Structure formats: C-alpha cells, structure tokens
C-alpha cells in the first residue's frame, strides 16, 4: 500500500476562521461557547452553542463572502459555505491547485456531514405547507444534499478525481479522512481533499438533540463552562458548527513537488457497536476495537502513542471511552496525554473528527497537547494525563484521534510525525 501524508490544513471553528488563529486560541484556553442570539432559544432547554465568530474576515472572523459568491450562498445551507472556506484554505496551504487534466483527475474530494442542510429542509417544509409545492426553489435539493459540499468544492477547484461523501454522524470527519487515505493508498487518487462540515445550530437540531437528552442544559448562564469532559458536573455536549479539511497526498507525490509534510496518516480503524442508536456500548468494546485496528494498521504499539484527541463529548459516554483507552494502553497509560478539545470548541458533529484530526496533527507539529478545559473535578481516576486546564508541552511523535457516532459507528485516525 502507498504511504499517505498530510500536506494542507483548513478550518472554520467556533474559535476562528483559519487554522492558525483557531489553534492559537485553543492553546490560549479560549471557549467558543455563548448564548445563542441568532434565533429564539427561550423555549429550548439548551440555550448555548459554540458558534463561528462572524465578521468582516479580519482578526480571525469568518466572512462568508470571502469564500463563496453571495448569490451562490443564497442557494445552499451554511455547511456548504463552511466547506468552501476550509477547502480553499487547505488547498492554498498545500499549494495544490491542479490545472492540468492529469493533475485534476488524480485529485479527489471526500467531504462528509452528519446532517447536512437541516435548516433549509425545515424552512422549505414550512413553505410547502403554507404556500404549496410551486414555491419550492429548484435549489432546495442541491443546496441541502450532503455530497454537494464536495460537489461545490470540486467545481470551484476543478478536482475531477474520486468524488465521494461520508455520513456517519459524529464520526463523519474521521471516516472521511480515513477513507480518503485509503483511496490514495490503493491508487484511486494521488491527492484527496477530505474532511467534514456541519451547520447544526438552529432551532430544529437543538430541539432534536435536546429531546435525546444529549445537550448541556445546566450552564445556560455560564456558556464557557458548559463543555467539561470527564468533569463530575458535565451534563451533555455543547453543540458547535464549522468545518475542517485536510489535503492528503501520496508520499512520493508530495516529496517530488517539495510539499510541506505535516504528518503521515499511518493508521485508520473502524468498528460498529451493534448496541444502541444513541448510546455507546457500556463495555467500550467498539471504541477499543477501532483504536486497536488503527494501531495495528500503523504498526504501532500502545507504548508508542503519545497523544490522544478523545471523542470526549462531555456526556456520560466520556467514561466509557476512557475505559476503552485504558484497556488499549495497559501499562503504557501513564505515558499518554489525552484531551478533549470539545471543551473549547464544542461538538462539531460531522465536522468534529476532521477538526480534531487537524488539532492532533498540530499537536505533533508543535509538540504540545491542547488542554481539556473545565476539568475541575474529574469523575474518574486514571493514570492517563487528561491535560486539565492548560496545554502540556511534551514529546508527541504519534497521535490518535477518536470519533464515535450515533448508530454505534466508530473511527480512529493515527498520525505520525514525519521522519526527517
């Protein structure tokens, strides 16, 4: 199998638009959470979310007009615009803008989303009810379909290789990167733009997740304290929005053009819980198996793992993941740092796995494990360093990023520092 490396990064997160400002603010311990003001939350049990700082594009703010024509934005849900922003950044960062037919057909796109255009679907269903079918826009369908994030990106950048999409709830971003890596390893493409995107901060999605009893409801007055993985006072996740994209590239291809190599994608593991539609299997067996598979694929022993970016959603499931990680690491547990960056950016659902993979890659680049914020009183005892409150400078050669989704779908990505 061919080797796959990461040569470009892009993101829009609740901390900032852009990889470097997001990463800087993450290491500064900032929170992206606030009380939702875009729509009425007075009748919702959860009134907080991690939303992208919108603005004119300066100082890390997100200005959609910088990434997509206003007349095109009007036709699509925001998850597509977020994808356009992160994709452009990643391709620019990789300095990969294929213009020849050969380069275009060897460059593919694999972008997923957990729920896609739920807001647009909600709005169109009201139009259908109130004004009838003749008032449904021809852009209603193409502007909501999950694979249209990849569709728009491929059209904007002339990427004619494999064009695929993933939908695996909160594992989407990780599966997208893992599957894209496989397409390169197997020779279907030389370069893949891969990641996840999500725009779930709207009344319908908040109401739906609240009914699942998945959301944080105890910190409406103190939003920045709401996402608190492993803490005894955690009571649900804080929803986030955004997108993360990476450029994956076949190693020799990257080397030949002198591309900057962030990390090598050495392992990818997948598993299913076959247990419950929203709850993870209490024995953590699914999580354990997907991590084990990633390590096996990467030829890495548990003792070689330095950093784990946990799924850690700030729900009761945190403890199950931790148990699974302890089972995986055994005696090596004390040497590992594991944090949940959801404590800062919230849960980006289908984008989470991609954004967190990028944070894992940057942890390798800068030799620092980002912190788990709000971990005041751990509900668990463990030998693993959960990186409370402050980032930890340390050796990180190998990093694992976990994502687990509704439906019992699990994915782990394993990255290694590029060997010089």
């Amino acid at each position, binding site marked *: 199998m061919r080797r796959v490396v990461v040569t470009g990064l892009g993101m829009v997160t609740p901390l900032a638009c852009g990889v470097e400002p997001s990463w800087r603010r993450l290491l500064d311990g900032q929170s992206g959470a606030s009380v939702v003001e875009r729509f009425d939350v007075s009748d919702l049990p959860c009134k907080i979310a991690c939303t992208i700082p919108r603005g004119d594009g300066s100082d890390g703010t997100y200005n959609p007009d910088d990434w997509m*024509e*206003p*007349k095109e934005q009007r036709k699509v849900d925001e998850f597509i615009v977020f994808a356009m922003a992160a994709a452009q950044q990643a391709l620019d960062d990789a300095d990969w803008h294929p213009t020849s037919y050969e380069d275009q057909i060897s460059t593919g796109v694999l972008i997923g989303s957990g729920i896609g255009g739920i807001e647009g679907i909600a709005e169109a269903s009201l139009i259908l009810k109130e004004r009838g079918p*003749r*008032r449904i*826009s*021809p*852009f209603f369908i*193409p502007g909501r379909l999950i694979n249209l994030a990849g569709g728009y990106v491929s059209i904007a950048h002339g990427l004619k290789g494999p064009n695929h999409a993933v939908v695996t709830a909160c594992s989407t971003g990780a599966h997208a990167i893992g599957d894209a890596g496989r397409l390169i390893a197997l020779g279907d493409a030389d370069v893949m733009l891969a990641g996840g995107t999500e725009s779930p901060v709207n009344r319908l999605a908040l109401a739906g997740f609240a009914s699942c009893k998945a959301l944080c409801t105890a910190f409406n007055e103190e939003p920045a304290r709401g996402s608190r993985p492993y803490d005894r006072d955690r009571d649900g996740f804080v929803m986030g929005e955004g997108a993360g994209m990476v450029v994956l590239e076949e190693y020799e291809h990257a080397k030949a053009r002198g591309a900057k190599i962030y990390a090598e994608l050495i392992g990818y593991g997948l598993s299913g819980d076959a247990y419950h539609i929203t709850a993870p299997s209490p024995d953590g067996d699914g999580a354990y198996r997907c991590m084990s598979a990633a390590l096996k694929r990467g030829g890495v022993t548990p003792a070689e793992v330095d950093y784990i970016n946990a799924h850690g959603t700030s729900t009761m499931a945190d403890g199950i993941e931790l148990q699974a990680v302890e089972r995986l690491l055994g005696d090596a547990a004390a040497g590992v740092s594991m944090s949940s960056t959801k404590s800062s950016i919230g849960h980006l659902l289908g984008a989470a796995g991609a954004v967190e993979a990028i944070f894992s890659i940057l942890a390798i680049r800068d030799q620092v494990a980002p912190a788990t914020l709000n971990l005041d009183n751990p509900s668990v005892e463990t030998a693993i360093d959960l990186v409370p409150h402050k980032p930890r400078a340390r050796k990180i050669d190998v990093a694992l990023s976990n994502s687990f989704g509704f439906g019992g779908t699990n994915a782990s990505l394993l990255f290694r520092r590029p060997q010089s």
Partner: protein
Amino acid sequence: MSEIADQVKKIVAEHLGVEPAKVTENASFIDDLGADSLDTVELVMAFEEAFNTEIPDDAAETILTVGDAIKFLEKNAA
C-alpha cells in the same frame, strides 16, 4: 419604462447577482447574465411571487430574455 419593467430588472439583478446596468431588455438570462437552467426556474418563481400570477411551464419556456419576461408580465399580470 413601466413599473413592471423596473421590478423585473430588479428581481433579475438580485437573483443572478449581476450589475443592474447589465440587465437590459435584450439580455438573455443564460447567454448574457450567467444563469443556468435552475436559475431560470427560480427566476420564473420569483416573477410569479412578485406579480401574484401564475406562469405555466409552456409559457416559462419562452421567457429567455429580460424583455420576454417584461412582455409576458405586462400582458398577464393582474
């Protein structure tokens, strides 16, 4: 210029994101103003909405330019 013509031009400029100066009566939605087939469907819907009228599919197919739209609406709009 009629009130209908003004309004049609405004709708076209907004929906297609083009300079109002380009929206002349001779301008073809697809050839001159960058519309695709879905844009033209949406434009017809916008005209129906704005002028509170119904444009049947066979009539919509004959509306190819700004002037076509103005003519149709001047004749049919209430």
